[in-house]
């Protein structure tokens, strides 16, 4: 899991014992009125890090987790409005500003509500408790006899408002992990499908995305990337851009090349016309032999992710054995709006506006690259196009920093073109999985073994392209976090099933062909694909109904309940796959898949209904039926929106997506060569949400993605008796699988 824990000692020291007495709070509040000019704290253990109440009683949330297109601000607003008993319009939100918001780690891993939001809930609960205690003192009424409503605390007929208690000041309180939160049975806002706060402006063109951001005197930059990933810049013919209207400068630092112009179109024209020569470089593997390359890549170490019984002995003693190899292609983020950033440098102080999912981390990276103190860098978040992981925003910020510096610090806006995004954003790594199982004489599965070929680590800062090309600081940047699953691509390599002998091993590879990062559900997506297909292979081998087979090996009541509800939702007819009596060229099938995300949280089960044309090899996904349990729901419609997005985006990744490349560079540089799912291809999605108001809220931004490839593959098997073990399931691969059968 992408949880992080601050390693700063003072935080660890204070965590958990933060009950603050009323007198201290009162003194702090009194002192505060005079100290409003004081710099706002961004400490993640302070109430003031996350919340303020101004003189009018307006509450502001300061969140280090940002909206990547998920509607997070609406959900966080609900959480705080609920804890403080305020109407939604009395709560506003500031996100991802390194001068104002705590460093809660990157916005990733489906933990923005689960961890980030719960931190903010606890800050609000601490604030509520302190406000009640101060009010009790002021009103002369015990806290147990106070009523809190609409930002007013009332007791014995007298009232005092939040604004009167702390308005304009600070709390000066550590977050109290024991401060009582509201009983979910009293919720009025949490658990409701509150309408997203941002959609009216987005639907009418008033919303300002990062791409719309302008500052006075701003110039426009474009980058000119090497023709081959590792190529050296040999020469630049600056005369080639003479006469381009608005053109100002060619900026060259090492292998970094860019242009700056007064107008955006001028910058685009200059970047297209600039003549440069690059050295030859052919460091990528041959695409046709990618999987041999992955298999023979140096292994740094092995990580055993689960080990039950003695799988080696059980397997070698098994009368019957089954094995299979699965692979999952390298893919791109593919945000509809390419990365964009603006940087200015004023008297040594660098200001960066970007849609980075990790502004605090970007701040450290920019400080290192520009060789300036951390205090001299300020990063602000502005929402961009949908972000599904570490894409190119940080790199665009690095580009803008170099171009701004070359222009004497003037603000420069860098907008990546489509080819920059498709060609140079960090990719998901190619993943290869070997699986083996042993079956005894009675048909029982007695051993499960798997090996995952995945790159090591991967949650640290992805090097900025500008820094790499310009040969600038590559020094490691100390991060104030540690990660619960540092080797993220190994997540969900272990299985939720209870076979008597299990051994799952990840081979942590020393390298992977492309600069890589996490793209929605990293590791869990690829590994669940292999695991849930192979479970289906075992069910078919045993002649068992695939849903029954899973239930028979599941010792998890919550998971079993989910599968039972899925069976009802999908009107699941018990029978083994493949189906019998199939006729015709176009055949329908159904496939099931199940996941417990990170084997620790959100449960998802799904049934895919597909049709496959055996003449063309085309797979068409007709319908997905999904049951989803992420504990307490903050905003049910927001969760449903995320599930729909997960399913549709991952159907796209499963059926279509694979980057193309030659030995030098990515060659799929636009939507014609890297197609994604279009409207006519989109399946229907039926969702049943399980709400558990008294449980913790878990993540919903990724888990439903994980079950998609396996549900489709299992459905194709149900239709044709043919296994698809290589994502994407292109028509060519489907035809080859039919042929090979």
């Amino acid at each position, binding site marked *: 899991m992408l949880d992080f824990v601050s390693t700063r000692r003072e935080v660890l020291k204070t965590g958990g014992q933060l009950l603050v007495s009323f007198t201290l709070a009162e003194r702090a509040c009194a002192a505060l009125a005079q100290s409003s000019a004081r710099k706002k704290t961004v400490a993640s253990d302070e109430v003031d890090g996350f919340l303020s109440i101004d003189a009018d009683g307006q509450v502001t949330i300061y969140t280090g987790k940002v909206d*990547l*297109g*998920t509607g997070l601000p609406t959900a966080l607003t609900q959480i705080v409005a609920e804890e403080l008993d305020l109407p939604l319009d009395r709560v506003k939100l500031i996100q991802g500003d390194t001068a104002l918001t705590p460093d809660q780690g990157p916005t990733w891993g489906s933990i923005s509500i689960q961890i980030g939001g719960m931190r903010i809930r606890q800050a609000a609960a601490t604030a509520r408790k302190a406000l009640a205690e101060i009010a009790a003192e002021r009103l002369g009424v015990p806290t147990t006899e106070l009523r809190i409503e609409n930002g007013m605390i009332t007791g014995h007929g007298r009232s005092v408002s939040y604004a009167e208690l702390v308005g304009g000041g600070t709390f000066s309180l550590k977050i109290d992990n024991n401060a009582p939160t509201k009983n979910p049975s009293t919720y009025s806002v949490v658990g409701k499908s509150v*309408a*997203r706060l*941002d*959609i*009216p*402006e*987005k*639907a*009418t*063109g*008033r*919303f300002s*995305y990062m*791409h*719309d951001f302008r500052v006075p005197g701003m110039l426009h930059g474009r980058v000119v990337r090497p023709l081959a990933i590792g190529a050296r810049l040999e020469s630049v013919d600056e005369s080639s851009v003479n006469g381009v*209207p*608005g053109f100002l400068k060619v900026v060259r630092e090492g292998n970094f090349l860019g242009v700056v112009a007064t*107008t*955006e*179109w*001028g910058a*685009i*024209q200059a970047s297209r016309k600039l003549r440069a020569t690059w050295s030859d470089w052919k460091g990528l593997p041959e695409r046709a032999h990618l999987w041999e390359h992955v298999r023979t890549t140096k292994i740094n170490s092995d990580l055993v992710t689960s080990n039950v019984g003695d799988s080696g002995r059980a397997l070698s003693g098994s009368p019957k054995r089954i094995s299979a190899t699965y692979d999952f292609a390298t893919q791109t983020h*593919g*945000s*509809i*709006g*390419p990365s964009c950033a603006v940087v200015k440098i004023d008297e040594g102080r660098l200001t960066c506006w970007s849609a980075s999912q990790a502004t605090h981390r970007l701040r450290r990276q920019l400080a290192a690259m520009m060789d300036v103190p951390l205090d001299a860098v300020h990063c602000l978040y502005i*929402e*961009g*196009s*949908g*972000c*599904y992981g570490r894409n190119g925003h940080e790199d665009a910020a690095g580009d803008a920093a170099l171009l701004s510096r070359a222009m004497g610090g003037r603000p420069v806006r860098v*907008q990546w*073109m*489509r080819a920059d995004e498709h060609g140079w954003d960090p990719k998901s790594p190619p993943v290869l999985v070997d699986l083996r199982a042993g079956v005894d004489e009675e048909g029982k599965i007695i051993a499960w073994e798997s090996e995952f070929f995945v790159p090591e680590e991967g949650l640290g800062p992805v090097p900025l392209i500008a820094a790499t090309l310009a040969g600038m600081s590559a020094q490691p940047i100390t991060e104030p976090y540690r990660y619960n699953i540092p080797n993220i691509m190994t997540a969900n390599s272990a299985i939720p099933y209870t076979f008597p002998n299990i051994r799952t091993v990840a081979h942590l590879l020393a390298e992977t062909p492309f600069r890589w990062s996490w793209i929605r559900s990293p590791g869990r997506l690829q590994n669940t694909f292999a695991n849930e297909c192979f479970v289906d292979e075992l069910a078919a081998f045993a002649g068992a109904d695939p849903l029954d087979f899973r239930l028979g090996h599941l010792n998890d009541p919550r998971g079993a309940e989910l599968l039972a509800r899925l069976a009802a939702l999908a009107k699941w007819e018990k029978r083994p796959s493949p189906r019998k009596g199939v006729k015709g060229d176009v055949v329908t099938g159904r496939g099931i898949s199940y996941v417990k995300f990170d084997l620790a949280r959100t449960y998802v089960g799904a049934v895919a209904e597909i049709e496959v044309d055996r003449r063309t090899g085309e797979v068409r996904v007709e319908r997905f039926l999904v049951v989803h349990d992420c504990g307490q729901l903050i905003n049910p*419609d927001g969760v449903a*929106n*995320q599930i*729909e*997005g*997960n399913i*549709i*985006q991952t159907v*796209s990744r499963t059926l279509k997506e694979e980057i193309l490349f030659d030995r030098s560079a990515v060659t799929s540089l*636009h*939507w*014609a060569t890297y197609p*994604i*799912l*279009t*409207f*006519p291809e*989109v399946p*229907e*999605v039926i969702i049943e949400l399980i709400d558990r108001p008294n449980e913790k809220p878990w993540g919903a931004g990724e888990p439903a993605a994980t079950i998609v490839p396996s549900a489709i593959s299992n459905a194709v098997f149900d239709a044709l008796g043919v296994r698809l073990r290589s994502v994407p399931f292109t028509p060519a691969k489907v035809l080859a699988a039919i042929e090979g059968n």
Partner: protein
Amino acid sequence: MPTSVSLDVNGRAVTIEVDDSGVPLLYALRDNLELKGPRFGCGLGQCGACAVLLDGEPVFSCETPLAKVANKKIVTLEGLGSPEQPSPVQQAFIDEQAAQCGYCLNGMIIHATALLAKTKSPTVPQIKKALADNLCRCGTHLRIIRAVQRAARNA
């Protein structure tokens, strides 16, 4: 040489200065007129984020030369409505919560508006076909289809 170009945008006659008359309409709208509805997505006419209505027909402004829009009526997302007074299609998108990041919404609403102007009660396949050239990466398609259906019902 800077030249003046006259445009009819959202019902207003405007004159802009450009130093290259070959500039695509998208940049004139975004950079000269500071409109935020039309969005840059690919610059290749492949994704639809930049769509505007030109005499009522949806076009990709990223590949429409400024020279080709003289004497034509250009309508952008802003020209359809505002948060205070959204158009029926915009209102339907709001009612259906048909957005995740919302970056593609411009193209969706522009194309849906053009569709509904001609086809009062489109079927789902007709809606899908009308929006087939508009890409959405977040996977909001189903809500967008529902929004177009709702707009048709409310018309």
